[in-house]
């Protein structure tokens, strides 16, 4: 069942939480709604669930217009950020609850709920109350409850944000496993880019209620369609260097960078170039793009990160740990030309179009 959002707008008093969204979520895919807090991703999820009704626009589940259908009737499963397990019911009864509402016979409901506990590896917890479970276990119960009625669509609202780092990693793989095992369409809200990039088939990046980019995780990372997308994805964040049109590029050493030279010359406006820290490497005085004094250096696990002073700004680079560089030295950094991103400084929009996602495509 494909899900279509057509011109969806949601207004709270005078504030637009979601503005004129058009997108399609393909059947069987896991799609992440990604963005900073207040970007409208949770509102979009609530609109899909039917707990919110859009101010205007239509939502289709397959061919069916469900815009005005109540949440009770949409036959969806939802996992809440706080899990919202009924505290007075045992794990098994929590999972049986949606089936009881559908008037499934008690015996069958119990069997289906027990099958769910098996899938989620929580058979041994059936008789416990939610208060006696750890965060990860509660999470599993919440997913089991969402899936037990075999919904067409599973919605997850920041499901991992209440877990500690290690458990988060485990649960996100678990969510991916379950989703693929039963082949359900799932929408996953998160503000964590790593979560979104690691488990989704598609990422829908939002800002201020507007979709910025909808594409496969990798192409979103490699070809961000605007400066916001470039900045939001990647850790440490991308380096953005503004250049002024028609002036000599003091910050950049374009000696061997012919393509860059051409692009900057061809554009009749200011251009911002983006350099991902991991794409930069230590180069020679002849072939470098940028150079400056190393003002900071740290090694975290396998990565060595340096900060280089480039006039009034600093540039971060992840370099090979073996590189013999010390704080205070002048460092020459190079990058492959195809890894340089160009954005219109004024609008933030990407200049060179590559294959992969764009605004509302793919």
């Amino acid at each position, binding site marked *: 069942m494909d899900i279509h959002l057509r011109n969806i707008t949601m207004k709270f008093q005078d504030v637009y939480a979601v503005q004129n969204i058009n997108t399609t979520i393909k059947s069987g895919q896991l799609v992440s709604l990604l963005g900073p807090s207040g970007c409208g991703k949770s509102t979009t999820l609530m609109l899909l669930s039917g707990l919110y009704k859009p101010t205007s626009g239509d939502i289709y589940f397959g061919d069916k217009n469900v815009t005005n259908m109540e949440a009770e009737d949409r036959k969806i499963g939802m996992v*809440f950020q706080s899990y919202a397990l009924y505290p007075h019911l045992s794990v098994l009864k929590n999972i049986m609850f949606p089936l009881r509402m559908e008037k499934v016979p008690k015996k069958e409901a119990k069997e289906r709920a027990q099958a769910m506990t098996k899938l989620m590896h929580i058979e041994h917890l059936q008789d416990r109350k939610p208060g006696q479970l750890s965060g990860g276990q509660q999470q599993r119960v919440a997913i089991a409850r969402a899936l037990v009625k075999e919904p067409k669509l599973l919605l997850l609202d920041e499901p991992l944000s209440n877990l500690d780092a290690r458990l988060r990693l485990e649960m996100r793989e678990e969510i991916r496993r379950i989703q693929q095992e039963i082949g359900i369409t799932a929408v996953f809200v998160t503000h964590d880019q790593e979560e979104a990039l690691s488990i989704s088939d598609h990422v829908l990046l939002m800002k201020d209620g507007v979709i910025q980019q909808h594409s496969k995780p990798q192409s979103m990372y490699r070809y961000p369609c605007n400066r916001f997308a470039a900045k939001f994805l990647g850790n440490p964040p991308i380096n953005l260097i503004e250049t002024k049109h028609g002036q000599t590029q003091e910050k950049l050493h374009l000696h061997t960078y012919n393509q860059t030279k051409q692009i900057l010359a061809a554009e009749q406006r200011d251009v911002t170039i983006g350099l991902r820290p991991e794409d930069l490497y230590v180069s020679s005085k002849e072939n470098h793009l940028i150079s400056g004094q190393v003002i900071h250096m740290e090694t975290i696990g396998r990565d060595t990160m340096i900060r280089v002073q480039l006039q009034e700004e600093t540039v971060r680079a992840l370099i090979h740990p073996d590189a013999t560089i010390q704080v205070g030295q002048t460092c020459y950094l190079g990058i492959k030309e195809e890894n340089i991103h160009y954005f219109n400084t004024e609008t933030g929009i990407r200049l060179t179009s590559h294959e992969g996602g764009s605004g509302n495509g793919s």
Partner: protein
Amino acid sequence: MDLNPTKKSTLKGYLYLLPALLILITFNIYPIIKSFVMSLYTDFDFFTGEVFAYGFGNFVEIFQDPNFRIAIVNTVIFVIGVVPLSIVLSLIISLFLNSKIKFRGAFRTIYFLPYVTSVVAISIVWSWIFHYDYGLLNYFLSWFGIDPIAWLRDPQYAMPALIIVSVWKGLGFNIMIMLAGLQTIDEQYYLAAKVDGASAWHRFKSVTLPLLSPTLFFVSIISIINGFKVFDEIFALFDGRPGPGNSALTVVYYIYQKFYEEWQFGLASAAAFVLFIIIFLFTIIQLVLGKKFVHYN
């Protein structure tokens, strides 16, 4: 911090308890013990405080007194009439006040007013409402072609009148407590229940009721105890009489009569002790039932 009690810390603790304890002992604990002892005085001189004989005679006497039996029956009828009605009404009103409506704050204040208004003032207003000739209630009933009722003078209607006033008076407190209870229920449970396909009725039955159960339990215990202790509403509503033909004679009113009107301190104490036992038993029963049905987080 040292968690084991030392002599010094214990002494310090007791010192903090002392002021409240002194007042409680003087005005609650001592009278309870004293009244139990007094209930066993069968022959004594209350001027000198000299007691000549102890025994269970007082208990035998009150159980043979038809008025005491009337008082017990009336009290039970009163409790059965007031408590369930009051709880159901307060629950409905508090659900309504907890929903998103206009002038919510104003409504909350209005419903709380009866609780903070003096019983005497309330009774004067209700005496007028219940008035045979000019009363608002009879006027209202006349719209439906019902003949005027002598609410406060007819023994048959005195108890219903008393129940109506008491339910109305108790609403404010119950609603306030229940509203507080309702507000502790996380909105997410309702959203989850909606997504799980629960209708409004099922959301009420499966989320609101169980999560409100500790509050309902508290309110019902307090209401039952208060119900058994009813006195001032009667005194004010029926002008210092226990209703026409003892129709609103309750146990506390009976104790009052024996103590202040007949100066039968022994009998009054025995009746008070019987009331204590009744309330105690009811509370025990409720606690046992509560363990089974009440959910605590």
